[in-house]
């Protein structure tokens, strides 16, 4: 392997590591949420700094690569997509932290489990987990066959999100003492919905890198 290829591989490896970290942050925030585990939630909050550090390092390494090697064609597309993917992963990391803080704030001790079930937060978590790991597989194997499947999962996320607004509104009309909890829960669901969007953006970047096609803003 030529040294320029090794440098590129190192950039890719850093993004892979960041991806692993963000997947683990998301999974831990999910577990903390489901089990109301404060300890785990605090761990997620404290590890958020590591996600930020990855983003800064990848950003500056990519800048250096462009400045020194003036990449073109697939190499240029890769570096551009690595920059955008790492920015997007950092945002997903922020949302995982936000979910952990939601658990720590403990504003929803008295909400009924049935309504939480109806809001389908756990389903959203499961779908997001698979979107993030499928997109990692697509990135790592440079194969975009999974992209359609990942993007359609985001449609499902959007569907659950829209429905949750109705469910919550109806519930809160009869449970005004839980308004604060309801608002916080809505913010939580909104975060999950945004993670879905970010996963879709990542898929678009992978398609740009691998196939040189631009999917953005078409749907």
């Amino acid at each position, binding site marked *: 392997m030529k040294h320029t290829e090794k440098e590129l591989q190192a950039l890719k490896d850093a993004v892979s590591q960041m991806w692993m970290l963000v997947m683990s942050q998301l999974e831990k925030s999910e577990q903390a949420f489901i089990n109301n585990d404060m300890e785990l939630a605090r761990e997620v909050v404290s590890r958020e700094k590591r996600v930020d550090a990855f983003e800064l390092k990848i950003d500056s390494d990519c800048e250096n690569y462009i400045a020194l090697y003036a990449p*073109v*064609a*697939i*190499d*240029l*597309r890769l570096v551009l997509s690595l920059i955008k993917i790492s920015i997007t992963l950092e945002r997903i990391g922020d949302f995982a932290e936000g979910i952990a803080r939601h658990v720590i704030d403990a504003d929803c001790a008295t909400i009924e489990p049935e309504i939480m079930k109806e809001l389908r937060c756990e389903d959203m978590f499961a779908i997001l987990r698979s979107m993030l790991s499928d997109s990692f597989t697509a990135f790592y194997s440079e194969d975009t066959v999974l992209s359609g499947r990942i993007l359609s999962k985001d449609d499902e996320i959007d569907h659950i999100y829209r429905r949750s607004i109705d469910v919550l509104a109806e519930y809160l009309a009869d449970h005004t003492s839980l308004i604060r909890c309801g608002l916080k829960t809505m913010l939580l669901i909104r975060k999950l919905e945004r993670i879905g969007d970010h996963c879709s953006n990542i898929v678009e970047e992978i398609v740009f890198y691998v196939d*040189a096609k631009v999917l953005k803003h078409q749907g």
Partner: protein
Amino acid sequence: MIETKHIDFYYGAFHALKDVSIRIEPHTVTAFIGPSGCGKSTFLRLFNRMNDLIDGVRLTGECIVDGVNIYNKSVQVDDLRKKVGMVFQKPNPFPKSIFENVAYGLRVNDVQNKAFITQRVEESLKSAALWEEVKDKLKKSAFELSGGQQQRLCIARALAVSPSILLMDEPASALDPISTSKIEELIHVLKQEYTIVIVTHNMQQAARVSDRTGFFMLGELVEYSDTKKMFLNPEKVETQNYITGRFG
């Protein structure tokens, strides 16, 4: 406009260009890139019949400049070379003054009018972005200029006879970054008036100056497309390997 149709070119038994067809629009810059020995210079030299000077060459296919097949018997090579100027890799000023270098093309074409010659020399030196640097020493020998200035002098010499097409074979390969960027700026300005075809080994230079890029390999035109597309998303894997440095 330049157009070639199914050009095959041989040096003796050696098949140097294989079925090359291309269209070059007026007022554009076209860059040819490719590994050493792939036939870029050979192809460029076809456009002003510079290859005619070499023994044992053979050409089939058509090379059409402004609607005329320049290899027709009726075409006068001198007239063709007035229309299609050329600048080479190494600056090659004549052992004459700066003024006479630029005036050379006019004199061999029997232009007598002194005022006209003086005017053309000044215009050409200005177009070549050299006037300010030499206007006070036009009588000095061209050899007293730096390499970058000599190259711009050669460009001025080519421009003096008012060509419509300018061929450049690695015009900046022996120059420092400042002279290189002057030549590149010049190419950018000159394309308003001329059609420019440039051969370069510097990939970034091709990307910076050209509208269209042709990639040659082993005498074949592998890919020819908009420069932006070529450098972001080339069609052929050979092109990609070459421009990303994975060749060989």
